[in-house]
Structures are given as structure tokens and as C-alpha cells.
């Protein structure tokens, strides 16, 4: 198969775009696409200070690489979760993230959950009701808390995450199956800051297929953690992605169409704002000051205070 741009040998075929590219043209094309969507959804500008949440995985490291190459002012935030799983998962992901940052001379903020909060995520999950069966809920809550805290304390204009199109389509699929109107109302490439102290968030990869991100990491030579989180097996998000990929195999572009049509429907007024039960003003947590949907202590403080 030939590259549609230079006629050389293609290494990536994107059936949803009817496009095949060689390595050189793909490495130019993908960052151009990311920049296009940063501008389209008014995510941030070159004068903004950006904080990228990085896990050591292909999406977040590639996102950091792309934003850096595009000339944005972007620091990284790595959150050490204390997950071992017999493969030293957190240690290895931290090593790879630090290596990435050092090679490019980029600033990386590291927050170790066991060091700061006294417990690794699996221990925290084991102790609490919300994590009894699977630690993902505890992990998500912890990461959101820390990401927001560091973004606010560091004075960043926006926090970016490596959510790709497959992540967004899977989330949309799950939320639609459950008619989770609150989540559907909020699903958008950018979430504006809200008082008190809720950082602005953006997802620059929201229109990029997961497979394209993996191809970018590979062709760019980015060393990322290939092993899946030991707790990911059997997760709903992976199940939804597999279902969507079955459709994609038969009908190229199905995932993209599902997500983009949703965004367009929202722009045309599909959802009323009051469908979001959290649309009301947020409250400051009485312990940490971060935003929470109900008066009193936030869920994160309630969870971590039990450790102390």
C-alpha cells in the first residue's frame, strides 16, 4: 500500500479517513490533527501554561511529546499509585515517564500516593467500600483529586489528559446504555473551570483513534509501559471498546461517527443543562478546600481520613 502523500511505502492505514501514510508523513499528520482539534474546541493557546497528566502509557506520553513539539508550554504530572501486580507496574511506569521527561528536558511533577497519603491504591481500595471489588473507583477518585490540586496549586491554565477517541466513544457508549444524563451533559472535549478551584480540563486526543496513538508512540520511538494495569482485566471500558471495534471492523468510521455525531447533536441542543444533577454550584471541601458536589467533606478526604 502506498502513502497517499508521497507515494512511498505506507505503514499506517486509517480506513476511517480513507488514508494511508508512510512513517514520515504520519508523524507530521498526527500532530497537525491534534493541533486542529485544540483550536477547533478552543482548548488552550500557546500563551497558556499546560499541565499534562502522564501515566507512562502510550497516549499520555505521546500527547506530551506532541504538545512539546507543537511548541506549547507543558509540564507533566505523574501520580505514583503504588500498584505492583507482580510486574512492578507503578515503578516501571514512573521510570519510563522520568526517562521521557529527562530525554526532552521537560519538567515533571511526581506525586506518590503511598508517600503522601500513607497507603497504596490497592490497600486503600481493600479498606473501603467503593473499592472492595475493584480498585479502579478508588484510583480514579484519587487521581482526579491530585490532578486538580496540582493544576490549581501550580497556577496552570489547563489540565490535559490523554483520552483518545476510543476512550471517549466507550464512555459515550456506556453512558448511553445507562442513560446517564449527567455524564452525557458533561461529556465534551473541554470542561471549563468552576468555582471553587475546579481546574479547566481538555482532551486534545479526543478525535484520534487509540490505534493511531499506539502507531505514533511506536514510530516516534517512545518507550511506554506496554503491560496493562493488573486491575484492568475484565473492565467495562475494555468490553465497550471491543464491541465498538467489532462495528469498526465492518464499518470503518463507526466509532468516529458515533462520537462526532454526539458532539454535533449536543451543539444543536440535544441536552438541556438541567439534565445534569451536578449543574448547581459546587462547594468547597471543609478539609482540603477542593470542590465537591455536596456540603462538607469531599469523598477523597472522607476516604483518606480513615487511614489516619
Amino acid at each position: 500500500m502506498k502513502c497517499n502523500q508521497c507515494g512511498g511505502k505506507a505503514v499506517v492505514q486509517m480506513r476511517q479517513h480513507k488514508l494511508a501514510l508512510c512513517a514520515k508523513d504520519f508523524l507530521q499528520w498526527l500532530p497537525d490533527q491534534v493541533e486542529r482539534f485544540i483550536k477547533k474546541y478552543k482548548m488552550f493557546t500557546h500563551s497558556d501554561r499546560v499541565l499534562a497528566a502522564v501515566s507512562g502509557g502510550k497516549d499520555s506520553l505521546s500527547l506530551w511529546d506532541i504538545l512539546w513539539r507543537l511548541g506549547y508550554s507543558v509540564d507533566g504530572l505523574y501520580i505514583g499509585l503504588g500498584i505492583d501486580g507482580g510486574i512492578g507496574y507503578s515503578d516501571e511506569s514512573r521510570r519510563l515517564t522520568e526517562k521521557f521527561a529527562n530525554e526532552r528536558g521537560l519538567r515533571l511533577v511526581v506525586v506518590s500516593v503511598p508517600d503522601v497519603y500513607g497507603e497504596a491504591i490497592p490497600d486503600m481500595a481493600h479498606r473501603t467500600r467503593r473499592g472492595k471489588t475493584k480498585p479502579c473507583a478508588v484510583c480514579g477518585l484519587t487521581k482526579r483529586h491530585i490532578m486538580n490540586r496540582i493544576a490549581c496549586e501550580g497556577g496552570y491554565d489547563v489540565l490535559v489528559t490523554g483520552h483518545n477517541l476510543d476512550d471517549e466513544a466507550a464512555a459515550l457508549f456506556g453512558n448511553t446504555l445507562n442513560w446517564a444524563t449527567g455524564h452525557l451533559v458533561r461529556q465534551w472535549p473541554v470542561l471549563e473551570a468552576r468555582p471553587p478551584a475546579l481546574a479547566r480540563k481538555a482532551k486534545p486526543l479526543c478525535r484520534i483513534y487509540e490505534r493511531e496513538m499506539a502507531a505514533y508512540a511506536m514510530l516516534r520511538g517512545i518507550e511506554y509501559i506496554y503491560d496493562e494495569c493488573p486491575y484492568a482485566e475484565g473492565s467495562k471500558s475494555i468490553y465497550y471498546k471491543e464491541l465498538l471495534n467489532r462495528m469498526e471492523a465492518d464499518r470503518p468510521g463507526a466509532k468516529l461517527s458515533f462520537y462526532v455525531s454526539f458532539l454535533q447533536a449536543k451543539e444543536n441542543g440535544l441536552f438541556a443543562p438541567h439534565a445534569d444533577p451536578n449543574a448547581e454550584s459546587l462547594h468547597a471541601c471543609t478539609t482540603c478546600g477542593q470542590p465537591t458536589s455536596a456540603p462538607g467533606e469531599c469523598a477523597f478526604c472522607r476516604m483518606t481520613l480513615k487511614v489516619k
Partner: protein
Amino acid sequence: MSVKLTLRDKEFIVKPGMTLRDSLSKIDVLPEAVLATRQGEMITEDEILQDGDEIKLIAVISGGYEDDKTEAVLLGINGDEM
């Protein structure tokens, strides 16, 4: 006469002369879920696999953060509703 495909710790053997896409179909792997390399070089799905080829398949789908990546991250706060 065979082609070997590996995906994580699994090995699959298929007949040569098929495209990568047909080979993936034979072993029930979704093309969207993997990248394929031969001798370290990425190849496209129309590539015809030859006798003796060893194809490394790289899984591209990650997840498990269902709370993080699907729901509450969209609100991005401390999740009292959870």
C-alpha cells in the same frame, strides 16, 4: 509452510499467502485492536504474509479506569456521587 503471529504471550500459526487482515480474521483478532510489525517494521493490513514470516502483534487497547476514563472524569471533581 507457515507464518507465526505473536500477541503478548500467545502464538498463532497461519498459512502463508494470506493478507495480514485475513490472517487476523483467522485467529479472531480485530484489526483495530492491534498494530503489526515484521522485523521491527510496521506493516499495513493488505500485506501478504510469506512463508517464514514472524509477525509481532502489539495490542493497542487499554482501559480499566472505568471510573476514571468514562464517567466522573467528565466532571473531574471529588466524586461524592460515587
